[in-house]
């Protein structure tokens, strides 16, 4: 799929279900090294997996953010710097919108700083729940304001007001072929709970250790190649070298505690992303980690 990035303000329609709104970026005032920031623009569209709304049947909507080559935007925890995209929904009467579902991020190392986010494209999905009382023939119009930061050497804030109009129909909705692929791909990148994996946190003076007990069928090399992304900032120092050790299906990831980084009884929480070779039948690529603090060391 080819994407076109336009410079400056623009507004374009993508037809029917999706409406691509104009993005206005906050301009950088000219400095010595700011030129690149004035040339870029990322774009966002509010899209739906289905072409129509069936009363009472939840469906997925998403904000599709496309990024210029070399630029990235951020995860819910942006890391050392950056800003998570913010979305303010304006749902119509009879529709509620659930929380954003964040695909697992990738790590951007810009030594000594580390950030977490996405490049090229990301779909931030949310579940829309229409009331059973909606009448066929109505049109449901969901709106939202999105603000997201894109960074390369410089950073630019992007803002967009987006709208999506869908007809209400009685039948099971058809999927919208234009977005089917990106919704399916994105679903595979959502971190999952898997009770076969067990997590604990061990707290040291200067370290926090994530203890992982993997299911029996986990190849050991998967463990040493996995990457942990904490949900919260200010607890572990992402830029500090991490030591890992594994023995059988047990694995420990020792991270430097940030000066003043505190962790409660709930311990470390976040996402453990497994390497590609871990994916396959029935195996999650990214796991939700809830690692309660274990007593003693």
């Amino acid at each position, binding site marked *: 799929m080819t994407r076109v990035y336009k410079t400056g303000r623009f507004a374009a329609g993508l037809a029917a279900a999706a409406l691509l709104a104009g993005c206005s970026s906050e301009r950088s005032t000219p400095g010595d090294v700011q030129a690149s920031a004035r040339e870029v623009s990322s774009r966002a569209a509010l899209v739906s997996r289905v072409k129509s709304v069936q009363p009472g049947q939840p469906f997925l909507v998403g904000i599709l953010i496309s990024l210029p080559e070399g630029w990235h935007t951020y995860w819910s925890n942006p890391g050392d710097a950056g800003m998570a995209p913010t979305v303010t929904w304006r749902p119509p009467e009879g529709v509620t919108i659930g929380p954003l579902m964040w695909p697992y991020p990738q790590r951007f190392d810009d030594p000594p700083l580390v950030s977490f986010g996405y490049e090229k494209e990301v779909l931030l999905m949310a579940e829309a729940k229409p009331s059973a009382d909606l009448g066929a023939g109505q049109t449901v119009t969901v709106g939202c304001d999105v603000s997201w930061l894109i960074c390369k050497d*410089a950073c630019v804030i992007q803002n967009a007001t987006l709208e999506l109009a869908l007809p209400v129909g009685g039948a099971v909705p058809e999927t919208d072929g234009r977005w089917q692929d990106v919704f399916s791909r994105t679903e595979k990148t959502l971190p999952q709970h898997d009770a076969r994996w067990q997590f604990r946190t061990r707290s040291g003076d200067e370290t926090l250790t994530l203890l992982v007990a993997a299911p029996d069928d986990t190849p050991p090399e998967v463990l040493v190649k996995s990457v942990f992304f904490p949900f919260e900032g200010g607890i572990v120092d992402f830029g500090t*070298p991490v030591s*890992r050790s594994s*023995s059988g299906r047990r694995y420990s990831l020792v991270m430097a505690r940030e000066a003043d980084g505190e962790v409660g009884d709930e311990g470390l929480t976040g996402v453990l992303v497994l390497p590609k070779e871990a994916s396959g039948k029935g195996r999650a690529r990214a796991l939700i980690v809830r690692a309660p603090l274990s007593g003693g060391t």
Partner: protein
Amino acid sequence: MRKELIVAAVIVTMAVGVVVGGPAIGEKAPAFSVTDINGKTHALSDYKGKLVVLEWTNYGCPFVKKHYSSQNMQKLQKKYTGKDVVWLTVCSSAKGKGGWMTAENWQKRVKDNGTASTAVLLDTDGKAGKAYGARTTPHMFVVGSDGKLIYKGAIDDDRSGDPKKAATAKNYVAAALDAALAGKKIAEPSTNPYGCSVKY
């Protein structure tokens, strides 16, 4: 039959060369000696006995612009330098990286936007920034009159880039300075900073 694989402990250490750590609250604030935009050198030891604010900046960063276009930063600088607080604005952008400017351009921009800090320091080699663990612009630190770090983190609790929010957000730096000036305990001495990354 598949053999049970027994793996001895494997230790892998990721090679990430440089570390941003920085002192904890209550620790001695790292010493530095950095030249300002007018060629004058400022060392932390020059300001012994005073409260010192360190404000990491990059005029090209939208989060810095949020606080300068709203005049929020200049107002804080004026208010607290008027109370004998030393306010050092620091840019750790490496030469050629985002936010880096020549001293002449800095002089012009500082005049244009009404920056009212004690001095604007050009930490081009990033030594001071890395010693404090400066990650973002803005990233704020307050050094107590005893030379110990008493605040580090965000300027306020509104993590957006919206200049309109600067006036109404809860300002952590003002709260820390007011408490320190009154000899009181700082309620929130460490917060998670937000902004663009420092362009080391």
